[in-house]
């Protein structure tokens, strides 16, 4: 047991890359007219709010956990580690009270999803922002 645990821990440290927290932008579709502040983003990504201020359904797009940006977003906007966010969702999922945000592989997928869907909201490194999306928060 102890040996196995040691091995798993070793793998974990190999698999983890820590980057200095980069500037991050929360982005929505260009046509999205809703008022969005940090609280709203927090509520949407924690499943507490299902709609934007203008009444449109909100579709949060998460980066998969192997992206550095995911950890930055969880820490800076949601105010907790990715593990804590995951523990939070496990409470909701197993009570049928919520479904965690859809996860995509990388920032290009976030941009594509936000460009294509007026309801989508995601986050990317500020250096990856293009003219095809609207930045609502920059941190």
């Amino acid at each position: 047991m102890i040996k196995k645990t040691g091995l798993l821990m070793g793998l974990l440290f190999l698999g983890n890359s820590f980057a200095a927290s980069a500037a991050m932008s929360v982005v929505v579709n260009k046509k999205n007219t809703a008022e969005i502040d940090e609280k709203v983003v927090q509520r949407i990504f924690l499943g507490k709010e299902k709609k934007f201020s203008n009444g449109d359904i909100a579709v949060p797009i998460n980066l998969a956990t192997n992206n550095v940006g995911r950890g930055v977003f969880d820490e800076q906007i949601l105010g907790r580690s990715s593990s804590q966010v995951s523990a939070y969702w496990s409470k909701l999922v197993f009570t049928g009270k919520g479904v965690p945000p859809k996860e995509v592989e990388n920032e290009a997928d976030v941009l594509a999803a936000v460009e294509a869907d007026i309801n989508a909201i995601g986050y990317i490194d500020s250096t990856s922002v293009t003219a095809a999306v609207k930045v609502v928060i920059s941190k």
Partner: protein
Amino acid sequence: MIKLNKNLSVIAVAVLATFQAQADIRINGFANLTGGITSSEDSLYDYDDNIGFASQSLFAIQVSGDINDKMTATGQLVARGSNDYSADFEWAYITYQTSDNTSVSAGRLRMPLFKYSASLDVGYSYHWVVAPQSVYGVPFNNIDGVRFDYSGYTGDLEYSFQFTTGNIDSEFTLAGASAALVIDNVVAITGDFAYKNWKFRGVYATGKVNFDIPDLEPAFTQLSQLSASLSDKLQASDDSGIFYGGSIEYDVFDWFVAAEYTGVEISDSFYPDEVNYYVTAGIRTGKWTPFITYEKSDLNNGPKFLSEISGFPAAFQPGVTQLVVAIQQPAVAEDNTISVGVRYDLDTNVALKADIVKRTNDINDKEDSLLRFAVNYVF
């Protein structure tokens, strides 16, 4: 009980069948592998001084699917080590989202009695190795019925209310002997509030309680020959019971402290008035969460109904007293538990945990110590 389970399985299969026609089916699961070993000769939570896994390990699969954009069906299949890993549908219900902040669920559901009721079996969702048994170890965690949920927020205050009604049918162990518990006409009201770093919760529930305890039958028969009315009072047969509780939590993410308090009263029965609570605190430092928990469980508030014995002829009093006390004795207990442990977040879906538990029986001062370790997994 068996019949009920079969019926439930039929519902569950029907629920699953409706999934097959649907595209959007979600399959989630969780597992707690919890091993433990006590100090020599000790015994705690069915662990003994040989390493064991069965007592508090479980594996579960949850399938949920959207019947339409307002209705969701959920089935949860749980295999518990304490039940020889035979899988049972512990939950099977359909939820109807009546509006943005209200929903109705019907079927077999978790009773919303405690702060962690909903995710009680999902070890990954909390810091403990296992939720404090002094408070959470009750035989009435699931209900067949209907639950209404309402949630909302104003500014920084988030609130939710739940109204649950139905019946509970469960089996449990009292002083080592198996027994059955049926609670009819259950009504439970809960309120949850979150304000910034604070969380508050309150619950009040009532029901008609029936205990069926074969081991006590001979004593009840004897007592009823002496006094039918006293025997009737001591029996828990369609007697009103109440459950109440509250919890408070302060969590600033780097550290947290929480406490929960619950009580049970079935005044017109042999069952003692029961009070349980725990206080827990922990520090989150990177992937590590060291924590400490103190628990107290008190079902030791003196035998009830002794004052009624004075009405008996003096010659009968010693015999009646003996019976009245003997019937109440199996449920009497008082203990405190202290545990120190750590959670390590191995990944966003795996946590490793270990703790050391020491429970002291406050009646005879016997101590039992346990070392536990666990792997909690969700997918």
